[in-house]
């Protein structure tokens, strides 16, 4: 009886590392797409099986035309600051060209930290065996075709097929 209890405690202590992550990217702003990419690449580097599913506006992150020009919102973004830390006035953020300029600056800063552009980031993920998928429903909705998407995208799949990829008891689904 006693030994059984001790065994039970041991079992709880035993580490059960994550074996698979399935990451869903549904938003197309710079920070949302990069959050997905950093988490996906980090998982691949840790030897965790990785599936990434891009849907709705997240598709911008794998669409050839848009993927390397993603923006961060300069209006309605309370965390936005001027260089130096002063609050960024929403009125200013709405002026033409401001969002483009701010987003460009942000991409530059990220580049200085050795963060690659989106297309290269996708290549890094697939180089380590990570898989990139596009959501069929969203692709149809935005009237996109497979050839509009980056070559690293494995295929366009349904949400049902995505869930099939999420099997296993040490799997986590992450929604960014």
């Amino acid at each position, binding site marked *: 009886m006693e030994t059984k209890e001790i065994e039970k405690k041991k079992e709880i202590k035993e580490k059960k590392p994550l074996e698979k992550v399935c990451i869903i990217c549904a938003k197309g702003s710079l920070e949302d797409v990069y959050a997905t990419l*950093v988490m996906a690449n*980090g998982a691949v580097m840790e030897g965790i099986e990785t599936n990434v599913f891009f849907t709705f506006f997240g598709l911008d992150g794998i669409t050839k035309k848009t993927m390397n020009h993603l923006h961060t919102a300069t209006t309605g973004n309370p965390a936005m600051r001027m260089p130096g830390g002063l609050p960024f006035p929403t009125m200013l953020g709405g002026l033409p060209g401001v969002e483009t300029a701010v987003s460009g600056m942000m991409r530059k800063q990220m580049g200085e930290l*050795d963060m690659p552009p989106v297309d290269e980031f996708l290549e*890094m993920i697939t180089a*380590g065996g990570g898989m990139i998928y596009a959501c069929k429903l969203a692709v149809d909705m935005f009237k996109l075709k497979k050839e509009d998407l980056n070559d690293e995208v494995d295929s366009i799949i349904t949400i049902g097929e995505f869930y099939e990829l999420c099997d296993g008891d040490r799997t986590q689904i992450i929604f960014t």
Partner: protein
Amino acid sequence: MEVQTIAGAQVNVSEEGYLEDMSQWNEDIAREIANEIGIELTDKHFDVLNYLREKTEAGEALTIRKVGKSGVVDIKGLYKLFPKGPLKFSSKIAGIPKPTSCI
């Protein structure tokens, strides 16, 4: 910090088994750490290990992107050499500290 005997040499290692002092490293130590991970080292592995050691000595932070652009090996190749831990395992075998980079 603890002292461990690897390949007949006394070395200081961290809790996770990374060498604390990269000057204590030699190729036999590399082979033994690699064996434990399940990797058999080839010349190509040593090219990467030497590159990592050089950069660490120069005080540069390492990312797999940097290694991929070094001309020593591309990222796909790096994953082939050190499966499931391109930066973690290679750093451990190279006798340098655990990588602190997220990329």
